[in-house]
Every structure is written in C-alpha cells, then in structure tokens.
C-alpha cells in the first residue's frame, strides 16, 4: 500500500516558520526567567548532599543565615503536606531527611532577596553527614540485588534450544553511558501566592499537570487551588517531564514559608548535579545465527542504572525491551530487564525513552554477526528484517501492519550509493594506514503511543471571537519542537483560515485539565487531534447555521481561504462568525481525543502498546584517526517516515536535531562520576554536546512519501523521538572503522559514548606498547 500524498492546500502541509520564530530572533520570546518580577520576589538556591549515600546528622546554617539578604532556609520540616513526591513508587523525598541518596540530592533551600546571595548562602550551609556504602553502577546494584522495581522477562520460543542448534554463536557485553539533556534554558520555576491560599506557578515543564499535582500534594491543597502555566520551554528533551516538578515544588514551598513570590532557577552546575539523565545500560548478549546471518536465537540482558528512585524507570525499561527487536524478527528470544537502584541522580525520560538503548543492543549484535561471517552488515540486517505477511509479529505479540522497512532501506541504500561507497572505503582503508573510514546503514522502527495506555488522551479548547480571530489552547507544551505551530496549522486548516488568524495561548492547567506530559513524540497526534475535533465542532455548527439560511445540507458547506462557501453563496468568515454570534451560536468548543486500538498488559508485556510505528533509516560515513582515536562524522543520508507532513520544515528540524543529539550520546557526551559517586562533568566545559563544527559536511534528509496508514491527524506521524536513533548508524560506522583498523575480523568491543580513548582502546592501541 502506498498512499500518494496530495499537494498541500491550506495551512497544513506547508513549511511555515515556527509560531515564535520572529519573537525568538528579536529576543522578544519570554522564558520564565524573563518575566517581570513581582515586588518582593525572593530567590531560592538548593543545598546539596555532598555524599552519594549517607546518614544526614544535621546542618549548621549560622554562617548562611548571617549573610545580608538571606531570609531563611527551607527544610523538610517546612513541608505542610506530603513529604514524598506523589510518584507511583512513592520513593522520592521532596527534600532529603535522615538518609542521603545521591551526591547532589537537595536537602533544603537557601532563600534570599537576590539569587547570588541565595547561591552563596546555600554553599555556606555546613552539612554533617556520615558516609554509607554506595552503589554506583547498574552491575554493582544488580550484584547487590538492589532494584527500583521487579524485573521483566519477555520470552518467546525456546532460546536455549535454538542457541544449541544454531550453526554459529556469539556472545558479548558492553555499556552505554548516561546522557545529560543540556536544555539551554536550565530548570526554573516562579511561584506566586494568590488570594485565598491559591497559587500561580510558572514552570518550565513538559507536564504542567504533574507539576500542579506535586505542588498540591506538598502543600496539602486540592489540585484546583494550584494553577501551573508554561508559555514555552527553552528545550526539554524529556528532562523537564518529571524533573521540572521538584523545582516548582521547592519554589512554592519557599514562597509558602515566607509568604512572598519565589523564583528558583538552577545554576547549570546544580542542574547537572540534581536532575536525572538518560539511563546508562549494561548489556550482556548471546546470539545464535545461520550462515546468512539470520538470527535464530537471542538472549539479551539489560541492566538499567535507574539512580536513587524509580521515577519513570519502569516505562523507560519497558520501552527498551519493546525496542530490543528494532526492525528485526526475533523468533526465539529472551529479554531480561533489570531496573537497578544506584546512589546517583534518578535516571529519567530522555528523547527515545529507552528505545535508543534497546536498539543499540540489537544493532550491535547485527554488526557482530556480519563481522563474524564476513558479510556486509546491511545484508545481515536485510535478512533479519520483519516481513509483511510472515515473520511480522513482535516478541510482545503485536502484528506489524504498516511495515515499510524493506523498501525504505532499499531506497536509502540506493540514494546513498551504499555499495559503491563500501567499495571506495575499502580501497581507501587499504591505502591509508592512519585514517580509517567506516560506513553503516541502520534502520529505525519506533513505536508511537505512551506505553502506559491511560496517558494516550488529550484535550483542547478552540475559541472563535466575534471578530473571527481564533485562540487555541491544548494540553501540550511548546519546547521548540513546533507543537504549537502544527496544532495551529491543524485548526487553521479545519476552519479554512490562514495561519495568522490562529494564536496559541500558554499551556495552562486552568484551561485544559489532566493533560498528559508532552512526551513520547505524541504531542501533535494527541493534542492536534483534540484541537481538530474542537474546530470541527465549531465548523459543524457554523455549517448548519449557513445551511439553514441557504437551504442546503450542512455537509455541502465548505470552509476555505477565510470564506464559508455554500452552493448558493460565498461569505467572508468574519461575517459568518459575527452573524452566528448574534444568532446565539456557540463559537467555542472543547475537543477530546483518545488513541484507538491500543491495549497492553504490563505484567506479561503483551498486546498492542503502539498505535503505529514510525520508520526511518540512516547511512553514515565516519573517519577514525588511529593515532589518537579521534573521529568525525563525514556524511549522513537519512530517509525518514513522518507520514504526510503537517510542516516539512519543522519535521526536518526534528530529524536533524534528533540525529545530532543522538550522535552526541554515542560520541562526545560522556558523564563521569568519581569513585565517591560525585558527578565530575557538571558543565559545558567538561560535558561536550555537539557543536556547529561537528555537523557532517554532507547531511541529506529525505521524507518517506507516504501517509500514515493508521487514521492519524492529517495522515501524519510522530517525529520527536524516532530520528534520535538514526544516529546508531554513526555508532555502527565507528565500529566498522575500528574493525577495518584492526583487520582481524574479531568482535569490536566498544562502550558508548565512543570517545577517542574508547575508540583507541577498541582498536587495541591502548594495550600496545607505545611506539
């Protein structure tokens, strides 16, 4: 099936600029720290645990309190409501008391009339604590039996027997590191007391509803007494899904204690030390395969470093399991997922949400099988791809109904000239002893929907004012991904209006309640559909109103180019709106959407957790300096499936940005903790996200020309996370270059990120005597 995409007419399908682009470039776009401060505003700064694990004995705050400008401290005893955050695991104190669980855990807040004084005061607080033994890696925690949740074992077939029968067997282990979100706008909240004990809190959050819930819990209030607002975030990437809540709770606790507005904006170092990161994983695998490289059996153990609390680790690890197949049919498979509790920052959501780790494992296995057999890795990947009629059921029992993997890979391989370049690179490597090149083409199949089925719902409000202008509100948050632009395009399209007629207002818990996090790539699918349904209701009412006058059927009335067109007459939108108002027609509507078809049993990990899959593939060429281990990505070709694009420019932006972020995860972004569990890389001077110079010289993106086969808004597909995993092509290309440097056909043991040192070690250089 190949649904041709018609040319765009109307607001959807156009590469319109981001709705805030003009405000961004003129410095007018306000972030929370830019809001004018209310008189009397205080500033808070966190007091951090110096120990990874310890017993808190006391605090000496005399020096801090003596600092001019300091108004006081906030400690656990100042919490009027629940002292644990209302997470499902109930294992995360709002402020540490008695036991310190990681270095960087917040014990309290110093509050002062200005931010600098608050920061100084926080540092002056002396913490008396007694160290306890700390678990600092998933492997150590696993050995100690220390978990945040029970393990999950997804098993299909008979792995042991299939392994025993397989003509070839390989085993390996490797690690993938944590990743810091490094949103450019650090975590920030601004709590403002309102009348009658109510609160208005500005929070840079991907989930204002959860922030509201957490504040109400800590203050012992009803949710209806707390309003949380967010106009935009300066980047989120999952790092402001749960992690924004604690910041806002702390700010509100301080505001509650001192009865004044309080702003809490984390310094970058504190942000690194306090907030959670992408889960580091440890992998152990065993694979059995035939002469063609077809995987006959796979046993895979995934140990996730969840940090000190459960946070989102259960769904993250579930998603890692769901994506350990990536694009490949696994007949006999056992995946063991262990959720290890360590004394580190609580690992949290990060673009891909476990998917990248799961896929990294299976793609590593594919690369090793090819090396062992001396086959081209792309051929091995092809023989293992899911089929369309058979070999099309995932290990969790979902039938792939929309598989486009084979044609997508063929098309990309052709366009990227994979075979020609493979030959040219072999020639180059034969002739050049110092620089080795590597090439890899890897696919992505990413499941779209929150795996927690209940979260797949959304609401929106569309207001048409009497002048015909439209104000839109929905439960999603704008963090740069262009959600507000896309949803406005959807509403404009539904009403036949040009985009400037539609504005999106700030995300606000007082407008759309109980909204899910803007996460899981689902923002447009859920909120866009809800807004579309709201717009359709208004359109339907106006159509009936016009049809009554013109004596036609409502279905004959069309809305296009700011006009309302019936078989009898063509009227301006504004005129129809004004008349409808006078005739007492409701000009606003809510919209509500829940994703159909999905169901999933979290105990057996079976069902249909995903509404559909987003597909893509990337071909990356890298160069490796065998003297130093330094590497560069030279060229990247991507073919990615966004369905029928609502806004191609925004979608390409997500693909490119996700790819480069994934590249950072796998190459330069290394988080290093010392032997005491203190994070050493706590700022951009030591933690290196990609810079402009890391952009590949050639970077070609193409969109797959087919609409979503499921009934999704405008025929589009979600795009936020899937492209992140296209960067696994860089990982596999680097491993290819290492293999070519070694030339011994042996497995390439490499941990992520592939820093120069690790690459040199993989080549074997670090073990060889100097010279």
């Amino acid at each position: 099936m190949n649904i041709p995409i018609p040319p765009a007419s109307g607001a959807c399908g156009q590469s319109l600029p981001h709705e805030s682009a003009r405000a961004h470039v003129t410095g007018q776009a306000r972030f929370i720290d830019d809001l004018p401060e209310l008189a009397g505003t205080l500033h808070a700064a966190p007091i951090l645990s110096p120990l990874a694990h310890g017993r808190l004995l006391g605090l000496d705050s005399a020096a801090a309190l003596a600092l001019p400008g300091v108004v006081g401290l906030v400690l656990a005893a100042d919490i009027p409501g629940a002292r644990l955050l209302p997470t499902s695991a109930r294992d995360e104190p709002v402020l540490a008391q008695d036991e310190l669980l990681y270095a960087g855990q917040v014990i309290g807040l110093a509050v002062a009339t200005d931010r600098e004084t608050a920061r100084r005061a926080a540092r002056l607080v002396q913490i008396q604590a007694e160290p306890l033994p700390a678990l600092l890696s998933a492997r150590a925690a696993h050995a100690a039996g220390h978990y945040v949740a029970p393990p999950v074992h997804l098993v299909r077939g008979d792995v042991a027997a299939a392994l025993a029968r397989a003509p070839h067997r390989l085993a390996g282990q490797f690690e993938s590191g944590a990743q810091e979100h490094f949103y450019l706008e650090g975590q920030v909240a601004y709590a403002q007391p309102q009348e009658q004990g109510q609160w208005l809190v500005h929070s840079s959050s991907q989930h204002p509803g959860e922030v509201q819930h957490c504040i109400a819990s800590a203050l012992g209030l009803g949710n209806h007494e707390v309003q949380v607002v967010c106009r935009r975030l300066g980047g989120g990437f999952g790092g402001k899904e749960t992690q924004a809540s604690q910041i806002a709770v702390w700010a509100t606790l301080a505001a509650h204690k001192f009865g004044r507005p309080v702003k809490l904006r984390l310094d970058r170092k504190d942000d690194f030390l306090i907030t959670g990161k992408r889960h580091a994983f440890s992998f152990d695998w065993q694979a059995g395969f035939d002469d063609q490289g077809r995987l006959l059996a796979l046993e895979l153990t995934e140990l996730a470093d969840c940090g000190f609390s459960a946070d989102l680790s259960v769904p993250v690890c579930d998603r890692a399991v769901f994506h350990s197949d990536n694009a490949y049919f696994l007949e006999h498979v056992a995946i063991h997922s262990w959720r290890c509790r360590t004394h580190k920052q609580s690992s949290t959501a990060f673009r891909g949400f476990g998917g990248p780790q799961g896929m990294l494992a299976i793609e590593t296995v594919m690369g090793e099988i090819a090396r062992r057999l001396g086959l081209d890795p792309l051929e091995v990947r092809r023989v293992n791809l899911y089929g369309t009629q058979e070999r099309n059921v995932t290990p969790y029992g979902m039938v792939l109904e929309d598989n486009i993997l084979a044609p997508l890979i063929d098309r990309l391989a052709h366009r990227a000239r994979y075979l020609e370049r493979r030959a040219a690179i072999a020639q180059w490597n034969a002739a050049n002893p110092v620089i080795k090149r590597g090439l890899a083409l890897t696919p992505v199949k990413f499941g779209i929907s929150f795996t927690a089925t209940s979260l797949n719902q959304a609401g929106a409000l569309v207001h048409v004012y009497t002048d015909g202008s439209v104000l839109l509100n929905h439960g999603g948050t704008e963090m740069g991904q262009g959600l507000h632009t896309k949803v406005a395009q959807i509403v404009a399209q539904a009403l036949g209006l040009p985009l400037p007629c539609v504005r999106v207002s700030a995300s606000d818990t007082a407008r759309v309640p109980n909204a899910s996090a803007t996460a899981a790539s689902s923002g447009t699918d859920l909120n866009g559909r809800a807004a579309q349904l709201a717009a359709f209701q208004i359109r339907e009412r106006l159509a009936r109103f016009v049809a009554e006058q013109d004596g036609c059927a409502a279905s004959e009335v069309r809305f296009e180019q700011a006009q309302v067109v019936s078989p009898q007459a063509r009227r301006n939108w504004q005129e129809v709106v004004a008349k409808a108002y006078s005739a007492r027609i409701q000009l606003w509507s809510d919209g509500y959407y829940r994703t159909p078809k999905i169901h999933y049993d979290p105990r057996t990990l079976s069902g249909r957790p995903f509404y559909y899959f987003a597909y893509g593939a990337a071909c990356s060429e890298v160069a490796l300096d065998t003297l130093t281990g330094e590497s560069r990505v030279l060229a990247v070709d991507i073919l990615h499936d966004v369905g029928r694009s609502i806004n191609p420019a925004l979608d390409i932006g997500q693909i490119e940005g996700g790819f480069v972020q994934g590249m950072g995860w796998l190459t330069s972004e290394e988080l290093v903790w010392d032997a005491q569990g203190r994070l050493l890389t706590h700022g951009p001077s030591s933690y290196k996200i990609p810079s402009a110079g890391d952009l590949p010289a050639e970077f070609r993106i193409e969109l797959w020309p087919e609409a979503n086969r499921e009934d999704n808004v405008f025929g589009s597909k979600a795009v936020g996370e899937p492209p992140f995993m296209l960067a696994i092509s860089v990982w596999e290309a680097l491993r290819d270059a290492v293999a070519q440097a070694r030339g011994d056909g042996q497995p390439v043991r490499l941990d992520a990120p592939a820093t120069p040192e690790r690459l040199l070690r993989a080549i074997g250089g670090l073990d060889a005597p100097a010279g």
Partner: protein
Amino acid sequence: MPSDQPPFSPLRFVQRGAIVAVERVAPDRTLLALLREDLGQPAVKEGCNSGDCGACSVVLAQARGDGLRWRSVNSCLRLAHSIDGSALWTAADLAADPLLDLGGAELHPAQQALLEQHGSQCGFCTPGFVMSLFAQYQNRVAAGQAVSREAAQADLSGNLCRCTGYRPILDAAQSMARLPPARVDQAALLALLGQVAPAAKTPPSAGPATDRPEGAQPRHYLAPTDLAGLLQARARWPEARLVAGATDLGLSITQGLQSHERLIDLMRVEELARIEHQPGWLGIGAAVTLESAFAALLRQWPQLIDFAQRFAGLPVRQSGTLAGNIANGSPIGDSMPLLIALGAQLRLLRWDQGSQAPAERRLALEDFYTGYRRHRLGADELIAAVEIPCPERPAGSDWTRAYKVSKRVEDDISTVCLALSLQLEGGRVLAAAIGVGGVAATPVRARRTETVLIGQPWSPATVQQAMTTLAAEFEPLSDLRASAGYRRLVLGRLLWRSWLESQGSALPHASGLQALEPISPRTETESRL
C-alpha cells in the same frame, strides 16, 4: 586627571543610538547581570554562566582608527566595566536601532535569515546566535566577503544549540548576504563613541566605582589608560586582581561566587595592546586578544591554523588574551606548550618607586611556573608582553607543529597538547624544543625527550625512541577527560604524527581528520518512487 573628576564615574556605553549611563556598578558585576538584572534586558540569556554556550552573546563595537572593531562576546564572563566606552547590541536592539538602516525591512538579515531557514526551535540559544551572526555580518558580509561553510562554523564556534543540529543555522549564516543589506551609520556611531570615551587618564588615586553605602570599604574598578598608571596601581594594591578579558576571572565570580573588591583592568593601556613584528622576534602585548595573537603567530607559522582554531570558541578568543592565558597558568592552557616550544620569554614590568619609572625583567616561559597555577610573577609585577623568537632559518629547516587532542574538536579543553619546534638540517635534528600540556601540574618542557632527538637523524627509529622517552618523562593523571595511560600513549603518537607529516605527500592524510572530505559522491536527482 583634573581634580574635579567626580569620584563615582558612571559606566557609559552606546545602545540603540543613545548613551546609557549606569551609576554604582560593582567592580565584579558581570555584563550579563548588568543587562538582565539591573537594566531589565531579558533578550540576553543565561545558558551556562561559564562562557561555553554563547546564549548570552552580545556584540560590542569599539572605535579603532577611523573605523570600528566588531566582536561577539560572552556577556556572562565579561565584566560590566570593561564595556565602558563601547557600543553594545543585544538581539532586541537590531530592529530598534536608529543607527541601523535595515532598508525598510523589519528584521536585520541575521534575524531574517534565521527565520527563513527555520534556525530557531526552542529559541533560547537564538538571541546569542543572532549576535554571532550580526558580528559575522559586520565583519564579513558588510566587508563584501562571502560566508563559506567553514567561516560560518568558525564564527559560530562559541554558540551551542541543542535543538536544531546546526544545519539551518549554518545555512542562515551563508544566506545573509543574499538578503537586502543592513547598514550601520558609522559616522554617527563614532561620534557617540567619542562622547563616551573614558577619561584619558585614571590614576590609581581617583576613579573608584562603588556600590557601597558611605562608610563601607569602597570597591574599585580601575582602568588606567597609561602604563605608568597601571604599574602604580599594581604596586599600590598588590592584592587586587589584574583583569584583561576576564574569561577566567569571570568564572571565579559566576561559578566560584568570589567577590573582588578591587580589580585593575589593563586592556586600556595602549602600550600593552601592541603587536611588534621585529627582526628576529615577535612581541605580543598583554592586552592583545588571543584572536589577534594567533593571527600574528600564523603569519610566522601558518601551519598552526588548525591548532589556533581549536583554541576555545571565537567569543573567548576575542575577549581573552595570550598573556592572560599564561598568567592564569592552567596545566591544560593551550598556548603555553606552543610558546614553550617556540622559546617564548615574558617581559615583566613593575613600578620602581626609587626611580619612579618602570623596572623590567625577562623570564623564559618554561621557567615561569612553580606549581599548579603558581608562578614567579611578583605581587607588584605584570606580564607586559610575550616575546617569541623568530630566527631566520634556512628554508625547510624549521619544523614547528602543535597538536591538541580533546573529546570535541571545537571549544574543548585539551586532553593532551604537544608542540614541538625542531631545527632540521641534512636530515638531522640540530635543535629541539618540545612543550607539553595536560600531563603535569603545569605546562612543561620535555627536555629528556629533546635530548633523545638532538643530534640524531630525523628518522622513524629516532622518533620511536623519543616516543618511549616521552611516555616516561611525565606522570599524567587520570581524570574526567582521559586516563593517564591514554595521555601517555597519545603524547607519543602526536610526536609520531609529526614525523609522518614531515614526510609530506609520501604519507598522505597523516595529519588527522581536519581536511578530510567524505567519499560519498553527490547523488544526482533520481526518479521518485
């Protein structure tokens, strides 16, 4: 200075065609804090407060000769007082500046290009990128130069974006020249700058800037404009920190939360802002920025271009100074290994009370350091200039190279750094000087390794012997950047790289990844599925 000079001289600069005067600015107030907190200009963003992300970038223009010098700098590290007498732009100013003629357009090309290329996503880094693009526009586009991809990457090397992956931003940089031009009214701007030029002389006895109420210890930001005044100030207040570009001092404020009661800014002293090209040596004054210093070094040693571009990001190179990098004395500072290899000397000056004149001494850079961030500079002394020998040597006899290894190519701190300057004759090593960073508490000279090379043929056997010596000469640490073993090994490998490079076309592509092109052939348009 006239005695009627008011004791509290305000900080003055030009913004949006008007003079901004701010009273009672503390000496250690950063420009970012001044703009955001004191002046209510939130277009300038704080991303990292450590000079690494560029979200806080602003553009400064200063009168230079008949024209203007344009630079994008990190306002988080820059001290507010250092912009006294300059013109300043934030992203909010470009479309609101009467001195900027946008030819009827609503946006400056730097902004319009970003908008058209979809170069902003979350928008938080965007004002900083706009500023770097604006500086690029003034320095390149307005000067009639095309912006290549390499130039765009170099000019944006101090700005981080986490959303876009940079491609649309680089495209924006390259497309600015195609938009209707924007012109600065240079004459009007220079006239305004003339009005805010700081007083000709600020002797140390006058000119305190203070934010303290009467009776409290006054806090001073001293910015003498002549050498005698500077040296006198240094002698009178030896505890006061000297400040140049503040790219390290700023960190003590924003990250270390230190207060500085009194600072002595040396950047306004004309004698220190000079680059002297003399027969046999090159002198780089203490107020010369890293960018200008490297430009002077590259004239002598053009092969150092890749090394120069890996030194910090552009905004830091445009603020920080070579002498500041030396005085700061970090063991991973990148200029010192090179300068040690080149045999650089430091010209140190102090004020001699007896003769009422500057007193001078010279010290080889390799002898300057005594321990981790400790050196032999007297409490009343300052580094006035770095003097680098440039001996006339027969063609082909000078082999000078510098190498740096780091996790990221751009704007990263060295894991290790190796610089060597060899004199070769008839295939033998006549003389050798090797400077090393990242392997000891200070930048060091690898004397034992040099001994292995000197007098020997420049051959694989000699170099391999030198590598063995080099690996054993230092005891590097394992830290967040790399293990000791990696550092030791790679140090030798860099020496090996230098030998490979010296073989020229016989061993192509030995010099690493810099100039490497992808193998991928451009695909022509193909039929759609």
